[in-house]
Every structure is written in C-alpha cells, then in structure tokens.
C-alpha cells in the first residue's frame, strides 16, 4: 500500500500550469493610492471610490482573525500586488473570436466548457482571469429574458442603481477583516440580476483563475434574484503551482427576494501546495446570502484545493418561511488545512435550514467543520437539522467539529449530530470479499459517504466533483 501512497503523493496538480500572457501588474503594496488606482483603472464613478476608501479605512483599523483552527505564517499585506490584468484585455473583445487565443488555450487545457463547448453544455460562462473578467458568454441570449449577467465592473456603469442598492447589503465593508480588504481592492467579479418571475433558462457559471505570481485575487460576486425568480450558479477555481503562498479573498453576496430561489455551487480546486506543504492558495472567502419571505438559498460546495481554507457560506433567513441549505464536501490531503462550515441565522417565522457537511482528512492535513445555527427570538416554529460527518484516512491527520448552537426561541427546534470514524474495516472486507480491490473499494465508500452532497450538484459538476475526489484520494488509503 505504501507504494501507492508514494505514487499518489507524486501526483501532479493537474491545473498547475502558468500561462504566458502579457499582464499589467501593479507593484506590490497597499495604500490609498492603490485603491484610487484600481478605481481609476476601472473608470469608476465617485460613489464607488468613496465606498472603497471607506472600506480601506475600516480595514486599517481591523486585526486579522486568529480564531480559526488553522496555522500559517503571517501574511505580509504589503507584499502582494493588488491588481493584475491581462494586457491584451485593454480593448475589450466584442466576441470570443477576439479573445487572446492563448487565453482560450488555457481554458481548453482546463477543460472548462467555453466557446462551442459552452453551447453544447448550455452553460453561460463569465471568466475571471487574475483580477479581470475576460469574457462572458451567452449574454445576448440571457438579455432576451431580461437577465443581466456581466462583469461587475461593467454593471457599475450600466446598472449603477442595482449595484449601488445591493452591493454591501449582505456583506458590509465592516463585516470582517478579509471582506473589508476585498471591499477596498476588489477588481472584478460577476454580477447577476434575474428579473421578477424569470426562471433562468441555463446554468450560469464563473471561472476564476489566478495566473500572475505575487498577486492576490479579490473578486466580488453579486447575485440578485428578484421576486419569484430562479437561478442556478456555478463557480470553479484553479491556480498555477508556485512556491509562495497566494491570497484569495473573495466576497459573494446573494440576495433572494420574496419567493426567489438561488442555488450556488462551487467546485474549489485552487492549488493546494506541494507534498511538503509549500506554496498553495490561502482561500479566505466571505459568502453570504439573504432570504426574504418564502425565498430559498442553497449552497453546495466541493472543496479539494487551497493550502488554507477559511470559508463559511451563510444564510440569513430574514423572511418568514424562507429556507437555507448547505451541502459541503471538504477534502484535505498532505499539509492542507480547512476550517469551513456555515452559519444559519434564523430571524423569520417558520424558517428552515439543513446542513450536511462531509469532511475527509488524509495525509497530514487538518479539516474542521465550524458552524453556527442561531435561532433569534422571532424565529417561531423554525427548524434546523445538521449532520456533519468526518472520515479519517491515515493516522497523522485531524478532523474537528466545532458547532455553535444558539437558541432564543422555545418553539424552534435544532438538531445536530456528528460522527467521526475511519473507513470501516467491515465495509472494506465486504467489498474485497466480492472481488473489488482495496483501492476501488475505498473510492466507492468515500463516494457513498459524499453522495448526499453530490446529488445536490448540477450534473456537469457532479461528474467533475466525483472525479476530483477520486483523483485526490488515489493511493492514500492503506
């Protein structure tokens, strides 16, 4: 078995190439001028610059959070470049034909559905390369039904009233250290608006890639689903292999107005660092959605990448009868560390939430589930069910569970259960008895373990996620 472990450990990170694309990168460092530079570069209106500067002032007063169960050397925020854009993007392409072929080749290599593939897969993609949105497909078609899907930097100009109204309404600048940083220096991201009563005819998708060295990626996604609308949104991420750690601090805000539904799925495969734990992405992300009356937000995430993950997609269940869901698979291997989970804040009557979290720790990694379920005094008849299971593979890893349960309403019901164990010897034996190899059996068992989450993913992603997991686990069981 140790042979196959070695074999696995040698396995390359498949998305770890660097693309040789001319880029305009700002020198490392962070001060007010940098914020002004980014804003000017985007030709932003005065109000947005003021908003950024306010966030920067707040950030300067804040201290880095240390409560998460992760350890990493201190980040030097002055040693990061806060803006990097592919140069050839200065004159924005009108169609995919005008996109730098090398860029297209990158996405080809990644195997993401873009261009014709996009048509086949029926997915509209917004590609964010380093900090800038490169191309958005299917915009015209979406426009026909009134859906706005564009880089947030364009939305600022074309739909300032929407951006102004909703940006920062779910994750305010002051929310936390990394959200404040993002608010000050965010460069681009996706903006989605689904009008009243519209059901988005296709899956929307954003692909994030960090390419330049020494840069941080700070994108901001804002999705607004107006009354009675429905949208499913996918997000994928990769980064090159580098020795140094790179910072990714994103903010995602979801607004589901009355009777709307948003489904947000993520397959996160940032570079996790090498087998010695060198390099890799620090993934410090703030994701939160707000549900108005009868609305529903569903987060699904498959986390296999990043050296350090610090991420808690949350739902504020403000309206009566609203629903929040969180399905997560978090896999850590080698020296990866993940502290991830969710927050369900129940404010309205009869609000419901479900949390299903599956953690898999292998190698020398540490995986933690940290979740908060909060029933406020007004949350009469609210209901929560939480299940978080951890699977340990190897005797040098750790799996931890830190659930916080707070209830201030007697009619609210909260249920939490958690288990931690290794792959059962009995199950393995049964499979092997039936002629299935140990490796295959483990893969089957792990897949079964995660099934409750995978079934929530859109089809294309479910296939990708299953494969990702299989590859990540190959040979790590003995």
């Amino acid at each position, binding site marked *: 078995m140790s042979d196959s472990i070695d074999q696995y450990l040698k396995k390359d990170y498949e998305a770890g190439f660097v693309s040789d694309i001319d880029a305009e990168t700002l020198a490392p460092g962070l001060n007010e001028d940098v914020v002004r530079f980014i804003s000017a570069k985007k030709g932003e209106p005065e109000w947005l610059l003021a908003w950024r500067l306010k966030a920067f002032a707040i950030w300067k007063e804040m201290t880095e959070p240390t409560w998460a169960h992760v350890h990493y050397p201190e980040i030097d925020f002055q040693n990061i470049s806060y803006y990097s854009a592919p140069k050839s993007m200065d004159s924005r392409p009108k169609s995919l034909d005008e996109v730098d072929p090398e860029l297209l080749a990158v996405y080809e290599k990644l195997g993401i559905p873009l261009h014709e593939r996009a048509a086949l897969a029926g997915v509209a993609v917004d590609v964010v390369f380093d900090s800038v949105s490169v191309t958005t497909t299917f915009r015209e078609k979406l426009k026909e039904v009134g859906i706005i899907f564009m880089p947030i930097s364009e939305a600022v100009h074309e739909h300032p009233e929407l951006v102004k109204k909703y940006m920062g309404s779910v994750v305010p600048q002051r929310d936390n250290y990394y959200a404040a940083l993002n608010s000050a220096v965010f460069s681009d991201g996706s903006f989605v608006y689904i009008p009243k009563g519209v059901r988005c005819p296709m899956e929307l998708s954003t692909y994030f890639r960090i390419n330049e060295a020494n840069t941080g990626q700070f994108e901001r996604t804002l999705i607004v689903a107006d009354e009675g609308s429905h949208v499913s949104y996918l997000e994928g991420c990769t980064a090159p292999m580098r020795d140094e750690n790179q910072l990714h601090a994103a903010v995602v805000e979801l607004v589901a107005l009355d009777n709307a539904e948003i489904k947000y799925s993520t397959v996160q495969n940032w570079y996790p660092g090498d087998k010695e734990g060198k390099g890799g992405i620090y993934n410090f992300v703030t994701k939160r959605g707000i549900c108005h009356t009868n609305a529903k937000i569903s987060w699904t995430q498959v986390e296999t990448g990043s050296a350090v993950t610090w991420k808690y997609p949350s739902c504020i269940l403000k309206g009566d009868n609203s629903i929040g869901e969180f399905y997560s698979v978090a896999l850590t291997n080698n020296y990866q560390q993940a502290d991830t989970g969710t927050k369900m804040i129940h404010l309205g009557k009869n609000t419901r939430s479900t949390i299903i979290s599956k953690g898999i720790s292998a190698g020398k990694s540490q995986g933690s589930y940290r979740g908060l379920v909060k029933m406020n005094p007004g949350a009469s008849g609210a209901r929560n069910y939480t299940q978080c299971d951890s699977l340990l593979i190897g005797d040098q*890893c750790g799996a931890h569970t830190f*659930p916080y349960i707070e209830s201030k*309403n007697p009619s609210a019901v909260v249920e939490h259960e958690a288990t931690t164990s290794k792959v059962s010897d009995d199950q393995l034996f049964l499979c092997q008895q039936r002629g299935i190899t140990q490796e295959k059996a483990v893969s089957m068992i792990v897949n079964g373990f995660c099934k409750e989450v995978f079934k929530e993913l859109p089809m294309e992603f479910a296939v990708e996620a299953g494969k990702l997991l299989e590859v990540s686990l190959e040979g790590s069981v003995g």
Partner: protein
Amino acid sequence: MSDLRETVVATATQWTSLPWLAPYREQSLARVKAGQWPELRQEHWMHSPVRRLHAALATPTPSDTLTDKTDSIPALDAMRVVFVDGAFDADASTVAAMDGLTLVTFSEATADEQSRIVTHLGSCLNQADKRERHIMADLNGAMLSDGLFIQVDKNVQISRPIEVVYRTTGAATGLNNAPRLLVVLGTHAEATVIEQFVNNAAGSAVVNAVAELVIGDNATLKHYRLGVDQHAMVHVGAVHVVLKNNANLKGFILALGSHFKRTDMVVHHTGQGSHCDVTGLYLTRGEEHSDLNACIEHRTPHCFTDEVFRGILADKSKAIFNGRIHIHPQAQKTLANLSNKNLLLDQGAEIYTKPELEIYADDVRCAHGATVSQIQSDALYYLQTRGIGRKEAEIMLSYGFINELLNTISVAPLRAHLQSVLAVQFTRDSAILEHLG
C-alpha cells in the same frame, strides 16, 4: 477591569494560611499573574455574564449566618465533612476512622499526610492545557487555606459514601472561600464521594471550589457534584480527573442555576482501557445562569467516554454548555460519545451549546449529538387527551426528561433525595407534586 485584577492579585499575594502549602500557593499565584482574566472577548467566556462574576469579586459581600441547614440527605448513611465558608466545621462533621482510608482536612493533616497531599496537589490541574484550567482554578490554588484529602489504599473498597458539604454563608469576602478536594484512589480501590454546595438564600457570596480526583489502576470512583446553591450565589467550580489503566469514573453533575454558576469538568485518560461516564443536569429559571464545560482528553489508546447532559431552561434564564472531546494522536481505538439535549420552556430563555470534537487519531469512533427544542406537542396532546391539564402535562414531561438521568444514580437515598428536590424545583406548586413520583 485591570483595577479589579490588581486587587485580586494583591489579595492573593497577601494571603497567608498553612505554611506548608505556601510553595503551592506561590506557584498558583504566578499562574494567576500570567493568566487571562475572564472577559467576554475570550471564546471560553463569550456568552457568560462575566460582569456578574467581576461585580461579585469586586464588592465585599454582607456578613450573614446560614439559616437554612437542610442540606442533609435523608436516609443516607455517609461519612460527613462540612466546610463553612471554606473552613472545616468539626461539630457538624461525622467521620469514623477506617483501615485503608485517609480522610483528613488540610488543616489537621499530620506531617506524613502533608507530604502525601503535597505529592498529589495540582497533579490533575497541571495536566490541563491553558484553555481548560482557567484563572479561577489557579486562584483557588493561590488562596488555598483548607481542603479535604481522601486517600483509599490499594485493594480497599469503601462502601459507605463520603459526603462533603460546602456551606456558604456570605460572611466570606469571596476569594477566600476556596475549598479544595483531593481524592486519591490506589489500585483496585473503590469509593463514593458526594460533594454538595449549599448557600444561604439571603446572602450573595462567591465560592471557588476545585476538586482533583486521581483514580488509580482498576480503581472505581463514583463522584456526585451537586451544585444546589442558588439565588445570588456566584459559584465557580472545577473538577479535574486523572484516570489510570482501566480506571473507572462515574461522574454526576447537577447544577441548579444561580446568579452566576460555572462548572468545569476536565477528565484525562492517561492509562489504557479506562472508562469515563459522566451525566450532567442543569436547570435554570428566573434570570439565573448556568455554564457547564466538559472536556475529555483522550491521551492513551483503548479508552471509553460516554457523556449525557441535559438542560431545562425556564423564564429568562440562560445556560451554556460546552462539551469537548479531544483525541490525541496516540489515542487509537477510542470510543467516545456525547449527547446534549435542551428544553426551552419560555420565550426569553437562551441556550448556547457547543459540542466539540477534536480528533488527531484515525482508528476511533466518536459521535456527538445536540438538540434544542420545546416539549413535543404530540406528547402534550396525548396527556391532555387523558384528562391532564396542559400545565401539569408540561411539568410531567419536563420532569420525565431529567428523571431518566436521575435514575442512573446508584446511591438510592441520594436518588430519592434529588428526585424530590427537583420535583419541587419544577412545580413551584405542591398540588402538582402528586403526579411526580
């Protein structure tokens, strides 16, 4: 805040009592000086009303005498040791000499006993990491003046329970009410220890009590800690346990709410094959507060932990439960379970529960579950269809919720006593008492 801290440190620095305990007091004082003062911004205290604790430590309490002496457990044949405001009360105590049993207060210990006490004093506390042995436990050490030492020799089984009663009158200034219990069980020894905390309803006072329990190879200790002190009482307490090979702990904690109550239970599995069964109950009402922390440290392989905690919160009371199971990398083949269930009876009651698993070994099976809800409506309905009024039905069901745990108490007189005490606690109306039996 820093003023209060300085005052406390100054008081502890000037404190003098038994000279042979001075080195231990100094060690503890050094820790107090280096330790973190309980504050809301610390994770471990963030939901606790620490202001109440600070206020009680800052303000000297009025002198009062204990009028309510109903702390005896009917029909319980036990050796009884009584402390009043941290000092031994010989008149109220009944102790019989027995072979193989050392039962002596620190103030009356002989030279030989003193050396045995010094050997074991702090041995459990020192195992705990900084987070679990907070400043209040060190403060107990720094202010240590008297305590009880129980040592059971190898192969000796003491069937008669040992009852330790801590009465708080309010005459104490607070910090000096710092009793310590030290229990050391030799190989194959057995004992039952009941700790009971009572107070005077009229006075407001502080008690800061620490128990250290060292359970030797194959030894069994039944430990009952009954925090029945209520009202304006500020009670901070800790139980630190070390389990050796195949040792057994059957622990029971009862915490009735008071102005501020915090109980920390820390168990270290340091030998192979040891068992730890802990049951806990917390019942709060009015504007009371109860904070219960249980931390089980699995340091060695093949050990077992089973924890069941239940709480009932009425009126505008608040309770906190933290249950941590920490499996160290060497502790393979561990089985650990924790269950925490809470009933919220009224709008305004608040519960903060956090069952934690921290696991660094792979061949283990650990699980925890936590629930918060009110009484099930169909159970209520069922009783109502049988002609029982809603209020009574609620009381019956909540009483049943905890009676399940009381039934696990193996000392029959103690069980009967607690059942009647808690029945009264629930009903506040004797007419309903007849339904509970």
